[in-house]
């Protein structure tokens, strides 16, 4: 097909598989780190706000490929030989946690203050107020922008090409080097990215509409 063999296509699909793996790593890591970041950003304690805000500013102020380099080479200077997957996973975690933390901070603050107050007046502890009353409402608000951000995560995993991680972009580059059909190869890669991302944006928009109606 188009001068490419089934083996070539399979090669690209394997790259796409690793793109999905890295995206999932980035999302799971980003959630694990991003949730505490969101909590600290909306905390009453100034010190927590300052530290978490500094973290967000720092990560958002550095281009993702540079974060990839810093993690990959930085850790190898420290004597750790990291597989590219681990380095890329850490970089994606840092990147997504900063953005998810900001998104979720907004969602927590979007729950009316009167809900905190009502929970407080019922003698709930601060943790109970958050877990039983605020969090479920914040999660509902958070679903559309979070699913929307998944698209950014998937697309931005392509920067892992700079540290030689075998993702979809990298496999396309390698395949092009051996077949010399750049237009065909990169068009197929583009289609594969689209196939991964499109359902996510549809889902995000559908949730958004559902939330607006409610």
């Amino acid at each position, binding site marked *: 097909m188009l001068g490419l063999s089934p083996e070539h296509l399979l090669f690209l699909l394997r790259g796409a598989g690793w793109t999905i793996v890295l995206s999932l790593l980035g999302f799971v890591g980003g959630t694990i780190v991003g949730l505490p970041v969101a909590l600290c950003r909306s905390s009453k304690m100034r010190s927590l706000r300052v530290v978490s805000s500094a973290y967000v500013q720092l990560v958002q102020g550095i281009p993702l490929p540079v974060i990839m380099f810093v993690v990959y080479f930085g850790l190898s200077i420290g004597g750790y030989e990291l597989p590219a997957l681990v380095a890329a996973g850490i970089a994606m975690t840092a990147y997504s946690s900063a953005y998810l933390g900001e998104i979720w901070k907004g969602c927590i603050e979007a729950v009316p203050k*009167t*809900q905190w107050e009502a929970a*407080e*007046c*019922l*003698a*709930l502890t601060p943790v109970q107020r958050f877990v*039983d009353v605020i969090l479920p*409402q914040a999660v*509902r608000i958070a679903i559309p922008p979070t699913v929307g951000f998944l698209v950014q995560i998937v697309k931005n995993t392509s920067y892992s090409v700079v540290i030689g991680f075998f993702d979809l972009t990298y496999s396309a580059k390698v395949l092009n080097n051996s077949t010399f059909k750049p237009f065909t190869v990169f068009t197929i890669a583009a289609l594969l990215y689209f196939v991964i991302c499109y359902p996510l944006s549809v889902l995000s928009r559908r949730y958004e509409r559902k939330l607006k109606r409610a």
Partner: protein
Amino acid sequence: MEPIVRFKDVRKSFGTLEVLKGVTLDIMPGTVTALIGRSGSGKSTALRCINALEQINGGELHVCGRALHNGGFDLRALRQDVGIVFQSYNLFPHLTVAQNIMLAPRRVKKIGKDEARALAEEVLSQVGLLEKADNYPEQLSGGQQQRVAIARSLAMKPKLMLFDEVTSALDPELTGEVLKVIEKLAESGMTMVLVTHEMNFAERVADQIAFMHHGTVWELGSGEMLRAPKTPELQQFVGSGL
């Protein structure tokens, strides 16, 4: 008998704005006190001091045997003794009516699910909404939501209930059903403090009426006070039809 709430020259400021300028007021167990007065006179602030949503800056405030001005009391125990209902209901939208009511008894008093459900049904029948137990708040009218908010408060078995303009957000045809619930509570002997603009209701139900003006209790009396005001300020307030 000891008063359940005692304000003694209570002062409260927000920044440089002094909102309560020496409020003195006793509230006896089993009585209904209505706080009336112009918007901005400090009624809500006084009410919110009673369950320590606001901290006072001067004077003494005793609530259910606790000296709030000294600090160091058990805040969550106070919140269990004092229920409050707001103008905007503040039901939890992600929980059903029954779940709204069951949440605090389960988490705070650690009672079982079945017991909590029975409790929810008991307080819901008190406000006449048993059939709405499994609906979500958004499926209810404003008046019904406010009755659920009252039921939610009642489920904690408070010694004292506070109401802050609980009918002000309602269409006129829906205020009656909420006032009826409050009146029934009064008959059952519940101690209540209510901020209200419903003068006829205050006159009929309240044992004492406190007219607040400029951050003080300007005039204190029974229902008759509204028909024979002593101060020109209350006279003007009553005359303005507010």
